[in-house]
C-alpha cells in the first residue's frame, strides 16, 4: 500500500479514531497527536507490509500511542493504571456512541473559544482528515501557519477546559449554528476564493459539502443543516458553467445552463425539501434562492419576484448589508435598475459595507443599465481597485473599459 492508500483509509477513519480516542483518554489534544503519530507510522510501514485490516491497525496504533503519551505524564498515574490493563486489544467501536463522539468532535473543533481560522483548520484536520499541507493549499497560507493554528487551538481547548460532549440543550442550537458557519466559510472559500488567481477551488468546496453531509446524517432533525447542504449542493451545481476554459469567471446571465450539474441540483432540491418542513432559516432561504435559479431556463425567465421576496425574508431573519445588496440586484431584475439603485445608495449613505468591492460593482452595473456611463465606469474601476481576486478584477476592468 502506498501513500495514497494510507491517505484514503485515513480520510475515512480519522474522525472516528480521534473521536473514540478523545472519549477514551478525555484529552482531545493528546488524541489528535496520537492519531497523527499512527498515520505517520502507517506511511512508513504499510508500503512494506499491508495490514489485513487497515482501519483496525490505525485505531490500535493510535490507541497505543495515546497510552504511551499518558505513561509519560506521571501526573496521570491513575488513568494510566486503568488504560494499561489491555493496551494491545482493539476496542470495538460502538456505532451508537461513535456517532455522538464524531458529532462532539465537530462541536469541539468549532468551539467559540477558538479563532475563526483555528475552527476552520481544526475541523478540516480532525473531522475532514486533511493534512496540514492540504489545509494550507486550500486556504493559500504557509504550512507552518496551519500547524501553528492547530497547535494553538489544541492548547486553547485544553486551557479553557472544553469538555468532550454534546452541548447542553440550551446551547445546542447556537453551537450548531457555529458549526454550520465554519462549514459555510470553508465552502465559500472554495466557491468564491477570497484571494489568489482562481475563482473556484472545487476541492475545497467538496470538503465542506462532505462534512455537511456528515452533519446532516448525524443531525437529521435539524432543518438548517439540510438548508446549508442544499445551499452548497445547488451552488456547486453551477461550478461547471461558472468558469471558462481559461479560468475566467462567467456571470450567471452568460452561463450555459446545460452545463449545470443536474444530479447536484437534484440532491440540493432534496435537501431543501428536508429543510423546509419547519420553516426556513438563513441557509434554507439562501438555498431556496439558489433553487429558484436552478429551476429557471434563463436569467430572463427567472422568477425574480420570488427571489425578491426570499431576500426580504432573509433580510428579516438574518439582516446583513450583503443580503440588502443582493436584494437590490434582484429588485433590479424584477422592477428595474432605478429602484435597485435607491437600495444601494442607502447602503452607501449608511456606510454599511465599507471597503467592499461588491457595492461599487453592483452600483456600476445599475448605472450602466440606466445609461449613466461615465459614473458607471468610475464605479467599476473603484470596484476593481477594491477586489482581491485577480479573475474577478480583470472582468471588472474589462467591463469598465467597455463603457468607453
Amino acid at each position, binding site marked *: 500500500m502506498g501513500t*495514497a*492508500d494510507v*491517505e*484514503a*483509509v485515513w*480520510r*475515512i477513519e480519522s474522525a472516528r479514531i480521534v473521536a473514540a480516542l478523545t472519549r477514551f483518554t478525555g484529552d482531545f489534544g493528546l488524541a489528535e497527536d496520537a492519531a497523527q503519530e499512527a498515520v505517520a507510522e502507517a506511511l512508513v510501514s504499510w508500503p512494506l507490509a499491508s495490514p489485513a485490516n*487497515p482501519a483496525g491497525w490505525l485505531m490500535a496504533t493510535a490507541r497505543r500511542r495515546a497510552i504511551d503519551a499518558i505513561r509519560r505524564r506521571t501526573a496521570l498515574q491513575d488513568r494510566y493504571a486503568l488504560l494499561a490493563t489491555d493496551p494491545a486489544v482493539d476496542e470495538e467501536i460502538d*456505532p451508537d456512541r461513535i*456517532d455522538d463522539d*464524531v458529532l462532539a468532535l465537530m462541536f469541539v473543533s468549532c468551539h467559540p473559544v477558538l479563532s475563526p481560522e483555528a475552527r476552520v483548520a481544526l475541523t478540516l484536520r480532525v473531522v475532514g482528515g486533511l493534512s496540514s499541507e492540504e489545509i494550507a493549499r486550500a486556504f493559500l497560507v504557509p504550512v507552518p501557519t496551519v500547524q501553528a493554528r492547530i497547535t494553538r487551538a489544541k492548547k486553547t481547548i485544553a486551557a479553557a477546559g472544553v469538555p468532550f460532549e454534546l452541548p447542553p440543550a440550551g446551547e445546542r442550537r447556537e453551537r450548531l449554528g457555529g458549526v454550520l458557519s465554519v462549514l459555510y466559510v470553508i465552502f465559500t472559500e472554495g466557491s468564491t476564493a477570497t484571494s489568489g488567481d482562481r475563482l473556484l477551488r*472545487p*476541492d475545497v468546496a*467538496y470538503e465542506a*459539502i*462532505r*462534512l*455537511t*453531509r*456528515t452533519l446532516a*446524517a*448525524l443531525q437529521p432533525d435539524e432543518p438548517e443543516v439540510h438548508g446549508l447542504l442544499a445551499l452548497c449542493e445547488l451552488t456547486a451545481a453551477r*461550478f*461547471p458553467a461558472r468558469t471558462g*476554459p481559461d479560468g475566467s469567471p462567467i456571470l450567471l446571465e452568460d452561463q450555459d445552463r*446545460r*452545463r449545470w*450539474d443536474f*444530479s447536484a441540483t437534484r*440532491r440540493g432540491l432534496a435537501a431543501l425539501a428536508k429543510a423546509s418542513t419547519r420553516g426556513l432559516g438563513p441557509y434554507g432561504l439562501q438555498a431556496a434562492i439558489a433553487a429558484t435559479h436552478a429551476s429557471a431556463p434563463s436569467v430572463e425567465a427567472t422568477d425574480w419576484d420570488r427571489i425578491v421576496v426570499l431576500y426580504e425574508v432573509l433580510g428579516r431573519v438574518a439582516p446583513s448589508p450583503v443580503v440588502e445588496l443582493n436584494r437590490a440586484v434582484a429588485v433590479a431584475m424584477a422592477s428595474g435598475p432605478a429602484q435597485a439603485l435607491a437600495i444601494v445608495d442607502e447602503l452607501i449613505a449608511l456606510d454599511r459595507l465599507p471597503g467592499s468591492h461588491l457595492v461599487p460593482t453592483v452600483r456600476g452595473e445599475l448605472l450602466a443599465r440606466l445609461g449613466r456611463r461615465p459614473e458607471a465606469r468610475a464605479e467599476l474601476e473603484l470596484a476593481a481597485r477594491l477586489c482581491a481576486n485577480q479573475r474577478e478584477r480583470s472582468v471588472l476592468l474589462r467591463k469598465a473599459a467597455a463603457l468607453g
Partner: protein
Amino acid sequence: MPKYLLIMRGTDESNAAMMASIEEGIARTRLFIEEMMKAGVLLGAEGLDDPGQGAVVDFSGEAPVVTDGPYGETKELFGGFFLLDVASKQEAVEWAKRVPAAPGSKIEIRRVPGEDEVPQDSTVQR
C-alpha cells in the same frame, strides 16, 4: 470532484450464497449504507432484481431487437451499484473493500468523469 461507481458483479454461486442468508445480507448492507452516508460520500445505491426478469435491447441489426432475460453468456451479472463522491480512486477502493459482498462476487470500480472533462465543443450533442 470525481465520482466512482462501485458495480456489484455476482455469479450464480455468490447470488445463491447471498439468498441463503438474505436477511443478514440486507441488514449488513443497510449498516454499510449508513456508514457511507455518515462519511458524506454516498450519492446513490440500488440493488437490481433477478436478471431473468430483465430484457435486452440489441442494436446489432437495423432495428433494435428486444429479447427477455439476462445478457448473453456472461458469468458475472451486474447486481447493483453504489455511486460515491470521494477524493481519490484509493478511497473508492477502500470503500469497495468494505462492501458486505457475497463470497465469489466481484466489485468493479469505475470513475465517472467530471463535467469539466466533457468536451465543450458546441458540435457535441448533449
